């Protein structure tokens, strides 16, 4: 499915220009927040240097009420270059629930769920000499300066940047592979349609859809392409021509008749998928993908599942919604997997939670597999929707809630 509001979610349409605006907005908001939550040493902080034990400098950060205000209080304000373990606990500050270590705006490490009454949690980061910030969103003083003395450190935070770079490159290859398969699949679809064989065309339609659905956020980032390929009838502007997969789906599954128009639709899909291949190849060869684009794409695919598949709007004629559903999940998980090595360094707890939610979803979806059915999954009939839609919604919401948090953590800013 396509709509204007979601199209720019994965990627700004004109990267240079829009990214510039985004940076400006960020700079402005940083200035705005600096006046209310400036950087400074928190009350009660110790100015000394943390000593090394168990192979890492040990710093504890106590989140607590100080003079009636929620504060983050580190016991040391500096450490020698190398691994540093931050052990954080929350005594009684109900307004703070996470602690991050920042280098400028990059999150190097963090723990969420730092909740009053729960036991301490820790994260370890390897730091070069320089200035960092301990960031406690919601605290009276949100940012506390943390200094690392000495020079570069082997296996430092730069490792995360390298991992992210490798991840985005890996994802570009994945997209290229899906698009290549899509090119082949829509060519087969056109052949089947041209032959006039409705049953063969239905099969070819079901075979082609997942390749598109797995990388839909990338396709949506090209302003005209996704509407040309994947518009639902309800979203067609009055007077505009309805093209792409879904009018073809209507011919094949509702009227079950192949006309000259049907053949023209198939040919149009082949042309547009050719354009998609050229655009994605160009993108990979130039800027490539940003980590936050993978993250937003992963979350965007789950939005697609909730807004179009669970409602049964996407494949209204073929009832192949669960085929698309599973393809969206696969695409989402792929994007996540490419970020996972870096994300594990940044927030291992969240990474584990997301992996486990993907496992839960995949296991649940396996129950809908049906080798006899077109596309390999049960048709999403009105009866199936009535009985299962609510539990499917719950399943996907439980995955999207943690997944939506990762863009901020891997963002290159």
């Amino acid at each position, binding site marked *: 499915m396509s709509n204007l509001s979601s199209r720019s979610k994965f990627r700004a349409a004109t990267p240079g220009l829009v990214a510039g605006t985004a940076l400006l907005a960020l700079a402005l908001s940083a200035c705005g927040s600096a006046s209310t939550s400036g950087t400074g040493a928190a009350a009660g902080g110790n100015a000394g240097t943390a000593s090394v034990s168990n192979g890492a400098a040990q710093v504890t950060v106590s989140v607590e009420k100080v003079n009636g205000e929620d504060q983050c209080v580190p016991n040391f304000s500096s450490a020698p270059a190398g691994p540093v373990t931050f052990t954080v606990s929350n005594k009684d500050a109900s307004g703070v629930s996470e602690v991050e270590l920042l280098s400028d705006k990059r999150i190097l490490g963090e723990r969420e769920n730092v909740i009053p009454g729960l036991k301490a949690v820790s994260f370890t980061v390897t730091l070069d000499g320089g200035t960092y910030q301990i960031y406690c969103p919601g605290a009276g003083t949100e940012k506390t300066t943390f200094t690392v003395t000495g020079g570069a450190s082997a296996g430092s935070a730069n490792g995360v940047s390298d991992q992210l770079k490798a991840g985005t490159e890996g994802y570009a290859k994945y997209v290229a592979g899906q698009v290549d398969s899509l090119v082949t699949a829509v060519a087969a679809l056109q052949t089947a349609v041209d032959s006039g064989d409705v049953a063969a065309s239905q099969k070819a339609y079901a075979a082609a859809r997942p390749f598109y659905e797995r990388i839909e956020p990338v396709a949506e980032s090209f302003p005209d392409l996704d509407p040309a390929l994947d518009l639902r009838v309800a979203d067609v502007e009055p007077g505009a021509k309805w093209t792409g997969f879904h009018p073809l789906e209507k011919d094949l599954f509702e009227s079950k008749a192949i006309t000259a128009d049907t053949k023209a639709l198939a040919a149009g899909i082949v042309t547009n998928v050719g354009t998609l291949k050229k655009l994605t190849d160009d993108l990979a060869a130039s800027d490539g993908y940003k980590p*936050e684009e993978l993250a*937003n794409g992963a979350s965007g695919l789950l939005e697609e599942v909730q807004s179009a598949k669970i409602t049964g709007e996407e494949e209204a004629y073929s009832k192949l919604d669960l085929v698309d559903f599973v393809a969206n999940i696969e695409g989402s998980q792929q994007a996540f997997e490419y970020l996972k090595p870096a994300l594990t360094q940044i927030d291992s707890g969240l990474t584990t939670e997301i992996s486990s939610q993907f496992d839960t979803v995949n296991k649940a979806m396996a129950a809908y597999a049906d080798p006899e059915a077109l596309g390999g999954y049960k048709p999403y009939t009105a009866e199936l929707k009535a009985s299962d839609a609510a539990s499917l919604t*719950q399943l996907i*919401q439980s995955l999207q*809630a943690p997944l939506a948090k990762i*863009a*901020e953590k891997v963002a290159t800013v």
Partner: protein
Amino acid sequence: MSNEQPVDSLSRRRFFGGAGSVAAAGAGGLILGAGGATAVGGAVANAQEPNPAADVERLQAASAALSYPYYGTHQSGIDTPPQDHLVFTAFDLSATTPTELQLVLAKWSAAMAEMTAGRPVGKVEPGREQGVPVDTGEAFDMGPQGLTLTLGFGPSLFDARFGLAKFAPIDFANLPAMAGEALDPAYTGGDLCIQACANDPQVAYHAVRNLARMARTSVKTKWTVLGFGRASAGPTQKTPRNLMGFKDGTRNVSGEADFAEHVWVGEEAGQPWMKGGSYLVARKIHMLIETWDEDPIGDQQSVFGRTKQEGAPLSGQSEHDVPDFHATVAGKAAIAPDSHIALAAHENNGGTKILRRGYNFTDGLDSVGRLDAGLMFISYQKNPEQFVALQRKLGSSDRLNEYIRHVGSAVFAIPAGLPEAGSYYGKDFFA
């Protein structure tokens, strides 16, 4: 059904008498309202021309700023004077480990402290462009609005899933099946509940929405009811009306002694975490409003045992007259023995009282085209048996049953209040 009977002479007199006294009460209400506004405005307002718009603004500001303490012996939202709006939600846990449950309870306890103080539960506008807002924002800057959040544990929480059987209060179980029920599983039970009450409906809704959101991977919303008007009175409040048009909650539990005797749990639950707690019974009661509306006034009053306008017992003159269940008129009981108030009165139930804290609800039309509306009955008592005993009686012989159906039901153990920041509900379970 007895509505073919003529209105008897007593209720006819009450009816006309009632009309007169309500006109007076209406005027009194206006005067009181103006007095209240003046008090808020202070001496300056006295010297000025009447300015109703400014009075309304001042009252709204005072209502927005109202905040109840979060930490204390008892949870708020029980003996708190009932606010105007309710969002009641029951949740089931999708979590499978005690650690996940512990995290939900700790997160909720901290977030409830923030929201009842009128603060968001995290950034509405994160500093980083890729940040997802933590708080959903629709209550930002609206003030605490008298928000109270009351958390409860359902009997199912103590089943085998989390190993909490040894923490179950003594005899804590689902309510038994009773006469007069037509329960819909979609509105029954729950592992956890949140009663959110506030002077502004959006503030109450925001609270439940954000609690559900922050626990999304562990908790799923089972059922929810939005109450738009309170249907019970606190000690100093004017008695509100239910959707049948009758005053509800006239003889409610009130005062510390009553609460100690009827509402607050002591040692009898056998669990330290319940000492100072209570039990919440929730009943979603669908009123058959269209048929009720066509029922003659004599029958309506006889069904309740009270006059409609004044709310006086049919044995008396004014709302707070103590009902005399022995009074007769022309040889017949003034208050019919099968009227609602006769069956529910503590005098006729061995002294049993429950704290009623219900709200009117409406939710469009039901599946057969009737108004889907009624009473979200909520009561607090030190033992669910208090409710069960009363409802057994009401369910089998209350004349009101012709016009109501109990469609939802749940019971929750309400833990004692949190003593201070740093503690959380259910902490004992995870020691």
